[in-house]
């Protein structure tokens, strides 16, 4: 439970750059500092050593992201490390490999989460990872030719995609010699997968022996799209479409924060408050959908709870539409501020939002009656889909999934941005590690978000009229200095949503990499459902609250 004491917890002792250099020692070939963190260049065959030393000796237990990219003369993998205890302490490990033979050591033995990351890097950029347990493509079909984010990729080339990846579920599948198992496809068109996810499942009776999430059915080339857009205006519409469950503004904030830090733009305080308020509205809408669909998954409730959740989302969407002009794809943030002020008449807008907040506690009670105190629901969710904190960290889980496993990690508090550190709210954590805890965390976060919005409304209401500055002065074309690199993250609805940008002196990013929280959360599914029953697979999937637009990008 949240105690309100977390704010006073002691961050671990800061590791200085000298100490880092000492840990890495002469394995560091050079320095390649990024705006957010010191960077050390290491040899491709030192990767595991360096990462495990950083993990064991310096406490960097969170492999936040792996960025792969190609330069004219080399490939590069960047491991962005952080600490769960204090995400402001960061370090980047840069691993260059040659153009002709891009082989680098796999980091999978040190961080489990590197598994999927390295598969993605191989898939899109074409770097091979030596010692990787499962070197397959992850987003694109197995038969794809070429690596689309490498420099010499020809997009016009024809491609052939097979349908056989779908094994026949009725065929006998002898997973192990002695047992008689069955192979089962869940998805990609399946109501419980929340979009187009394909889970290859091997069953022994009702028990799950093995699952393998097969993703990429919604790989919409988001990174390529962002690399083709200009910083100032053309990129902002895309974040709305990563996590499209109304979390648009939270995603936009990820891009806004990264690009603002890259180009050194100050955002006016008033705009920060509007951002904070609208982003939290998005969080409420997103968590409502998570709750509604979870109940749909767990006990097929298309009538009551699902519809109630959507009724409440409608209200939030109405408010957001008044503010931004769109119901779902807001495109409301601008670099250096927001697109426009609160709608006129202001009082009406503020009152409407207040009304919503006033009704919220009663609605939350209703949900508690219907959902969390429901016996069937409890039987289905308590002690199923266990995700131990250590495992969660190893897989890089963040957001409500991590907080449901007792990991006290929330970037809004730990790496403050916007107006969060001025406001009074708590980070919710639960120790249950099961599906139930994850649902509870989300429901209580809704209440915390409401608290934040209320404080923001008070501030906005009293803000002097002539100081309502919504936009900083930003040049029409933005051209950050060449070869500046930055990795920044915000707390999205599903967890840590990070963006890495490398600029090359033009008005478009040379590399734009998205760190998606759902991608990590989903990769932990395997651990959660091992040896559980198949209905628990569906429940676990629902409680992870993934959204495929963000998993596949």
């Amino acid at each position, binding site marked *: 439970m949240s105690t309100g004491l977390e704010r006073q917890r002691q961050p671990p002792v800061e590791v200085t750059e000298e100490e880092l250099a000492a840990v890495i020692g002469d394995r560091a070939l050079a320095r390649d500092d990024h705006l957010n963190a010191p960077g050390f260049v290491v040899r491709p065959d030192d990767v595991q050593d360096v990462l495990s030393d950083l993990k064991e000796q310096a406490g960097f237990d969170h492999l936040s992201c792996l960025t792969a990219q190609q330069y004219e003369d080399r490939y590069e993998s960047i491991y962005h490390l952080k600490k769960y205890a204090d995400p402001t302490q960061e370090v980047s490990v840069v691993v260059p490999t040659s153009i002709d033979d891009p082989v680098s050591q796999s980091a999978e033995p040190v961080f489990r989460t590197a598994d999927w990351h390295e598969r993605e890097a191989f898939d899109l950029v074409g770097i091979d990872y030596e010692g990787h347990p499962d070197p397959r493509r992850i987003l694109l079909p197995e038969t794809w030719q070429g690596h689309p984010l490498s420099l010499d990729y020809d997009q016009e*080339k*024809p491609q052939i995609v097979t*349908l056989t990846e779908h094994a026949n579920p009725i065929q006998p599948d002898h997973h192990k010699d002695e047992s008689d198992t069955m192979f089962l496809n869940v998805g990609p068109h399946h109501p419980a997968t929340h979009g187009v996810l394909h889970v290859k499942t091997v069953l022994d009776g009702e028990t799950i022996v093995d699952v393998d999430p097969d993703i990429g059915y919604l790989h919409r080339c*988001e990174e390529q799209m962002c690399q083709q857009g200009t910083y100032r205006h053309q990129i902002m519409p895309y974040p709305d479409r990563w996590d*499209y469950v109304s979390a648009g503004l939270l995603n936009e904030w990820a891009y806004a924060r990264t690009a603002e830090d890259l180009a050194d733009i100050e955002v006016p305080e008033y705009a920060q408050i509007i951002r904070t308020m609208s982003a939290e509205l998005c969080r409420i809408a997103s968590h409502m959908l998570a709750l509604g669909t979870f109940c749909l998954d767990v006990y097929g409730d298309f009538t009551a709870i699902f519809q109630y959740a959507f009724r409440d989302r409608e209200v939030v969407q109405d408010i957001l539409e008044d503010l931004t002009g769109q119901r779902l794809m807001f495109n409301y943030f601008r670099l250096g501020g927001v697109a426009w002020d609160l709608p006129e008449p202001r009082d009406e807008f503020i009152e409407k939002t207040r009304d919503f907040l006033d009704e919220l506690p009663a609605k939350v009670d209703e949900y508690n009656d219907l959902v969390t105190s429901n016996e069937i629901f409890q039987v289905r969710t308590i002690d199923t889909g266990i995700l131990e904190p250590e495992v969660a960290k190893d897989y890089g889980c963040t957001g409500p999934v991590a907080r449901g496993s007792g990991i006290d990690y929330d970037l809004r508090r730990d790496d403050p941005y916007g107006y969060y550190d001025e406001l009074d709210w708590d980070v919710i954590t639960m120790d249950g590690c099961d599906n139930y805890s994850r649902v509870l965390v989300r429901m209580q976060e809704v209440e915390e978000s409401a608290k934040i919005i209320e404080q923001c409304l008070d501030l906005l209401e009293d803000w002097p009229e002539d100081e309502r500055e919504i936009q900083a002065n930003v040049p029409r074309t933005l051209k950050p200095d060449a070869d500046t690199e930055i990795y920044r993250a915000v707390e999205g609805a599903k967890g840590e949503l990070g963006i890495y940008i490398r600029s090359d002196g033009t008005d478009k990013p040379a590399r734009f990499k998205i760190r998606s929280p759902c991608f990590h959360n989903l990769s932990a599914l395997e651990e959660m459902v091992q040896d559980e029953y198949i209905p628990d697979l569906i429940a676990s999937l629902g409680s992870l609250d993934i959204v495929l637009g963000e998993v596949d990008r």
Partner: protein
Amino acid sequence: MSSNNPKQSIHDSTAPSTDTRDSRIGEGPDDRFNSKLREAFGSSPFILTKFDKFMNWVRGNSMFMLQFGIACCSIEMIHTYAIKHDIDRYGAGVPRASPRQADVMIVPGTIVSKFGPRMKRVYDQMPEPKFVVGMGSCTISGGPFQEGYNVVKGAEEIIPIDIHVPGCPPRPEALIYGVLKLQERIQNGESSPVVVKPYELEQFGDLERDELVQKLADDIDEDDLVMRYNWADSP
């Protein structure tokens, strides 16, 4: 029915319901199964209409949608099913989870290369007659992702589409309008428009033996189903 106007004497009469009520509470023969319709037919319970006209009318008024979420547009699609917009008012509100029970498919989102063959398969599994509503810019042209290396430039490259609803995403009202237009078409017995369908599922062995096919020959069986994307020819 010979005339669209009900007989005045029947229309204005309250007798049937009164009779039913009476028969429930009173003595005498039980004619609770009486209805206005039945009385209208009298002793010969027949309607004269063209069978296919009747079928079209039925089809249009009872559409079973496929529960099919792809991308962002599906969120607005769910809102169309849910409270406030409630598409059930138009007899189209029960999403079926299995394609074999559905007759309308709303395609709500971006189709990418990996999903193309699957969507085709789902479409093929729906029983005839079947109809498709394309929801959002992505199903028209690929939408915001049109330039992506992996994005199919519109759902019509793969399956025929009856109604396009533009928008990114279309508002629920727009989707309802699209569904109503589809109902109108179905009731009038109109079939889907002529479309270009460049991408079909084929057996690998039937493909022309060009460089790419040669290269993949070791990985793919002759009789595996494949879809070949010729990106250069895409609009």
